[in-house]
């Protein structure tokens, strides 16, 4: 427990110091997205890594957060700080309601159902033109401000987003170490066994699905206010797959793994600008190779590989 605190403080220190290293610039903008994607990956990881329930529709919750916040603050003129928790509550309530029938399904069926849900949400974004602006998007979303401070540039947004992301990391760490976290892992390993131990597996799964949707919604609200523009293309099936890739690459059930996956998948396309069209090939290849050769993700696979290599080296010397 103590080691986790130290790890967190070290991580937070690096995050807070990073802008000093990069002196603003374009990379700051990318790091803002790393923060948002980390939140989303952690949200999905709670569901997939801890509870063992897949979702291919999380881009939908992210989009709902972004659009509802965007519409309430731009068209209706609400304060972002008022809109964000309200939107999160609405998205959470919706997830809770749909969670009961949807999480009754397992494995492949759950994957298909969440995928269908995500696509329905995506179609609604595209078709309700009067509300969302349709395929051309919704613009004029205000930046978030705190008193006289308006978060209107990359460095300010960086601190805003990472403040939320660090809070989320602390929160999920505590959750994972609590009774709920242990119950989730029990459900993951065997739902029947968990129920025999007195865990209400069904309710627990719905609760974690709801929490995960709320996290995605908050990330969506923050995304809308930092970008000041949203369009349906950011919330389609491809983004759900991208989130899944982040979680799988980083490592199921690992919070820093989610950060690693999010950072890797957000930074990679920036460094491979020339190879822009290759990204979907790379995601596909990565997903397959990770599941085949490193099912524990980078956070577990790389140390394992290192140990194996060391052993080989050691045995050669002996």
């Amino acid at each position, binding site marked *: 427990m103590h080691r986790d605190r130290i790890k967190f403080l070290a991580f937070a220190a690096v995050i807070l110091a990073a802008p000093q290293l990069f002196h603003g610039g374009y990379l700051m903008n990318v790091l803002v997205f790393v923060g948002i994607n980390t939140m989303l990956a952690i949200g999905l990881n709670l569901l997939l890594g801890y509870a063992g329930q897949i979702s291919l529709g999380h881009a939908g919750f992210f989009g709902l957060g972004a659009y509802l916040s965007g519409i309430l603050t731009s068209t209706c003129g609400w304060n972002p700080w008022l809109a964000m928790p309200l939107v999160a509550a609405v998205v959470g309530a919706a997830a809770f309601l749909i969670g009961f*029938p949807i999480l009754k399904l397992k494995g492949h*069926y759950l994957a298909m159902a969440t995928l*269908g849900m995500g*696509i329905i949400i995506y*179609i609604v974004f595209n078709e309700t033109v009067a509300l969302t602006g349709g395929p051309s998007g919704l613009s004029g979303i205000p930046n978030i401000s705190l008193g006289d401070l308006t978060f209107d540039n990359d460095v300010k947004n960086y601190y805003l987003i990472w403040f939320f992301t660090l809070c989320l990391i602390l929160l999920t760490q505590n959750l994972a170490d609590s009774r709920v976290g242990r119950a989730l892992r029990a459900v993951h390993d065997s739902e029947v066994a968990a129920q025999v131990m007195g865990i209400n597996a069904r309710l627990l799964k719905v609760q974690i699905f709801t929490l995960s949707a709320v996290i995605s919604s908050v990330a969506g609200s923050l995304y809308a206010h930092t970008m000041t523009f949203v369009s349906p293309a950011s919330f389609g099936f491809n983004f759900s797959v991208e989130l899944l890739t982040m979680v799988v690459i980083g490592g199921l059930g690992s919070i820093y793994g989610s950060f690693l996956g999010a950072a890797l998948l957000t930074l990679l396309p920036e460094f491979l600008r020339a190879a822009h069209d290759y990204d*979907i090939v790379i995601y596909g290849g990565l*997903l397959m190779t990770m599941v*085949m050769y490193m099912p524990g993700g980078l956070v577990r696979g790389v140390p394992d590989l290192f140990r194996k290599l060391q052993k080989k080296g050691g045995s050669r010397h002996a």
Partner: protein
Amino acid sequence: MQFDQLLQYTLSGLSTGAIYALIGIGFSIIYNATGIINFAQGEFVMLGGMLTMFFLGLLKLPLWAAVPCSVAATTVAGVLFECLAIRPLKQPTPINLVIITIGGSILIRGLSMLLWGKDTHAIPPFSGEEPINIGGATILPQHVWILGVTLVIIAANKYYFYHTISGKAMRACAYNRRAAGLVGIDVRRMVLFSFIISSALGSVAGIIVAPLTMTAYDVGIMLGLKGFCAAIIGGMSGGAATVVGGLILGILESLGAGLISSGYKDAIAFIILLLLLFIRPQGLFGKAQSERV
């Protein structure tokens, strides 16, 4: 609403429904042999259309030669997919299988995009574009092709599964894989067979629909999902129930697009899918079975 309008929607719905049925049968054949929902099924459909376009356009093959070549090439892709991605998987848990078939599907999609670009491509209709008039509604010769080919395939499928040794062996695997292994059926070969049949079926669906709807590297997602929806309506049976499922879906979609709004056309299939999964996961015609839920 006039009768001929209704007839028109129903007729065009029937032909798209036949496509969904073919894709759905592909889903259920693999599901029954392996317990896997193959998320890459739609990509086989896309490959069928795109490869035909490739053989016709770049290699200048005539249609009668391009079609079998494209089916064969897609089948090879299906075999490779099974041998390189599904078979070596060390921990075949449902989540890993979902992730690996999704990975495979976006890999196939990405490679096709790199090979053939992002444009939509057209394939010429098999026999002209002279509309045929049926009781006030018009259909194209391609619609007749689609319905005809689907009928032939369903009949061939039925013959294979009920009157040949390997077809019966595959059904045995679907009932109980361990028991099938015990009576001497090579289950691994049956799994490979299931991928061969499904990818071939998928590619045929992709080829016969391409002259009507055009084809592009990304048509596989939607067609695949709707085929899955047909299979769910049919309770993953692989037989007549899935065909009926596809036809119901096609007609509902066509009526919905005509009467409600064409923008929400795709949403109709997914709403049906969700409702069915929530209320009757065993399919519209199946008996309740706790295992599938």
